[in-house]
């Protein structure tokens, strides 16, 4: 798994590629802990190149979402592949997250 982080329009963005699972999620969890500590944090997780998401990865994203909500921030997801999105649907986490088709639409929503 590779992660690339940057800030654009005051949004903390992480692009994740490859397998996001128990074996690889720790640095992502650490980054999410860091950026969701700021009041009003705006965070975008780009999963366009993420090929595999397991329950530990889901837990990490839910935890970050809850932390963001606690500081009156937002955490959005974008670019999910169909197979990954199907797991969000199965667990009904598609209702918990704001999910966008791509980064452009997600940033518009976060900054609009």
């Amino acid at each position, binding site marked *: 798994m590779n992660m690339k982080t940057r800030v654009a329009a005051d949004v903390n963005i992480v692009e994740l590629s490859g397998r996001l699972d128990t074996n690889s999620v720790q640095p992502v969890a650490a980054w999410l802990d860091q950026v969701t500590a700021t009041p009003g944090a705006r965070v975008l997780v780009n999963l366009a190149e993420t090929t595999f998401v*397991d329950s530990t990865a889901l837990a990490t994203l839910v935890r970050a979402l809850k932390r963001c909500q606690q500081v009156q921030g937002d955490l959005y997801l974008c670019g999910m592949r169909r197979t990954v999105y199907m797991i969000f649907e199965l667990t009904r986490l598609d209702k918990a997250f704001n999910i966008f088709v791509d980064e452009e639409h997600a940033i518009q929503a976060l900054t609009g």
Partner: protein
Amino acid sequence: MTSRPPESIILDLPARYSYLHLLSDCIADMLLLVDGIDDREALLYNIQLAAHEVCTNIVNHAYHNSAKGRIRIVLTLHFDDPALQIDLYDTGISFDFASVPTPDLDEVRIHGYGLFLIRQLMDTVTYTADRGCNHWCLTKSLCLEGCGSR
């Protein structure tokens, strides 16, 4: 028509997260041996995820992430009435599989999706603990195109 015998792969892995991608790779390669699988991409992902979740459960709970145990995995591909069977064995701490509740999906929760996903993504899931050996058996029909709903 001649019946094609099942094909098997046996893995014997140290119980470490870093080896679990090998199981996913084996599942992908085995499914390539069957032509005409309906929605191959989703089926492959679902089987890989269910098997991965069993292994993470074993590493986490059976062995408490001690890196001392092993996971023995037998993948059996059946060509007549195509199906994949995955048997996973560990010698760690057992648990009462039947007593684990289904999570309330109306509540956004951090934990508890692993066993739910295993049960949902496979056709059958059994877990037996007998004399120090725990055995998971997962099966999934490889529905061919035009065979209707899975």
